[in-house]
């Protein structure tokens, strides 16, 4: 965003101010995340700078089997199961939804993405009221079902978006060459919409992996996930082991973000070369 050469002094000053404001906003966005990470290798138990020394002892604390590694295991189990369930259900529904037109389509779409718009606390409350009666509170199944509800809209949206750019003539071509619908789906459609499906799956994974409100309402200690343990830790034991857990979570979500961005970049490049 270069300034034209004929800009006046006033414009130049304004332009500098504008850049400074933007830089400050970026500092605001990134600073709190970046600044806490080094504390996880502090040798003291204070959450502050300067670090008196560097030590991995807080990571040793969190790599103990209980409670943190159990929580990590729970998080991974629940998030993986949620991912599979949400991706399968969401992809099928998105495929069906984009393949025909019908009167209630907006209504169905609204239902499919409504878990995203309803505040988490209400979804959690609803699960709390009803899941217990269905024998689902305090079970892995309950957590997985509730997380799938939250994750499914992301799959539906990403896959729908990918399918809208997808040329259905390909499927017709495959079918006219004798491929049954199922085979056409797996051989033609799925490979082509794969980037969207994978992005959706990653969104589903992250949704479950980072979720805390539902866990607060319906999880028992046996299902406590990392965010759930982190929440009690923030209240009970504010020390650098909490920061170590936070660092771990940041690393995981940033790597997943990198995968999604890479996928998007690839599909954009593909689209460009095709065009």
């Amino acid at each position, binding site marked *: 965003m270069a300034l034209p050469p004929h800009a006046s002094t006033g414009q130049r000053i304004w332009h500098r101010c504008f850049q400074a404001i933007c830089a400050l906003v970026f500092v605001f966005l990134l600073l709190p995340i970046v600044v806490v990470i080094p504390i996880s290798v502090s040798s003291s138990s204070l959450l502050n700078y300067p670090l008196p020394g560097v030590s991995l002892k807080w990571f040793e604390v969190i790599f103990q089997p209980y409670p943190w590694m159990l929580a990590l295991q729970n998080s991974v189990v629940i998030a993986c*199961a949620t991912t599979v369930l949400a991706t399968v259900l969401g992809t099928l529904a998105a495929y069906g939804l984009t393949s025909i037109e019908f009167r209630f389509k907006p209504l169905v779409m609204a239902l499919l993405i409504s878990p995203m718009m309803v505040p988490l606390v209400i979804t959690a409350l609803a699960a709390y009221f009803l899941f217990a009666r269905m024998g689902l509170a305090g079970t892995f199944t309950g957590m997985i079902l509730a997380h799938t509800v939250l994750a499914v809209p992301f799959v539906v949206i990403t896959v729908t978006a990918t399918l809208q750019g997808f040329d259905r003539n390909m499927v017709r071509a495959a079918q006219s060459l004798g491929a049954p619908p199922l085979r056409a789906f797996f051989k033609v459609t799925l490979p082509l919409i794969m980037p969207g499906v994978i992005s959706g799956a990653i969104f589903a994974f992250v949704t479950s992996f980072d979720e805390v409100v539902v866990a607060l309402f319906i999880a028992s200690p046996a299902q406590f996930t990392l965010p759930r343990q982190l929440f009690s830790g923030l209240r009970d034991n504010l020390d650098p082991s909490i920061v170590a857990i936070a660092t771990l979570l940041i690393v995981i979500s940033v790597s997943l973000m990198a995968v999604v961005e890479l996928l998007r970049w690839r599909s954009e490049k593909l689209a460009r070369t095709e065009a």
Partner: protein
Amino acid sequence: MTMSKTTLRLAVAAGLAGLMAAGAVQARDFTISSWGGGYQDSQRKHFFKPFGDSKGIKVLEDTYLGGWAQFKAMQETGNRPWDVVQVENSELIRGCEEGLFVKLDWSRIGPKSSYIEPAVSECGLGVVVVSQLVAWNPKNAKAQPNGIADFFDLAKIPGKRGVRSDPKGTLEFALMADGVDVKDVYKVMNTKAGLDRAFAKLDTIKSQIQWWEAGAQAPEWLVSGDVVMSTAYNGRIAKANKDGHGLKMMWQNNILYVDKWVIFKGSEHVDTGYEFLKYFSDPKREAAFTNDYTYGQPNREAVKYITPEVMAALPAGDHIKDALDTGREDSVEFWLDNSDEIFERWTAWKAK
């Protein structure tokens, strides 16, 4: 597209493994709920972990911070996420009356007689003697409190105060600070005017209250300087002082609790619960805990093994001469009768 295919297969495999693992770990392990933070860390060290190891089982933990709501959910749904929990007196009586807790068979635990009288109850076994009192950080406070009244005096000692986010105990502190004698607290609070008086006293410092829910928060905030003084549990403050923080406690008009272990009726681990209580009631083990974490001992036998320095710091003797005992009949009865309405008023008042 080979890469995507491999990824897809991997993802599906991982997910299926996850689903299967979820099914496999569906059965719940033995679960104890206590009050969190360093206190529970110490309990884990002295009781939970060695108990689990000795039995070769996994002991899971949760945190309970008081109140009836979680128990109500258990009653409504029949769910039993916990097997053993440490409760305060009024919840103990109520849960026992409503059939939520197991009526204890003492032959499976140990001799009743070795416990002080307030530690023995139809459904509960005494865990610790805890005192809630005013603590402050001499490094931060501009003045030091000379009595419970000073805690409520913003002019004398300005600044934020930590207060437990629970009407139980807090309203009592307010009335005592307002000049009500320890023995008359519930007589006064049983009237509408008396209750209003307690809330009015709290109103005078409300703008400066920082509510804590977990006992661990009070010493944390005192150390970090987020509050100038706070109500707190004595053991938590003593622990912080062991870590070199030099906090001070004021014993005048402290509030005394003898928390109890209870076992949930209908849990799948009632027998393990009994075994845990038996394991817990070993005097040497209990003394080792008290030597580590300065809460009083309800077990008479354990007292022998407590070091004199720790003994002098416990809620006992002179420390509790004007304490308010929450095991008193009028205290238990008052909260049984009024806790629902007061909790509702409290939530409303606090959020205002």
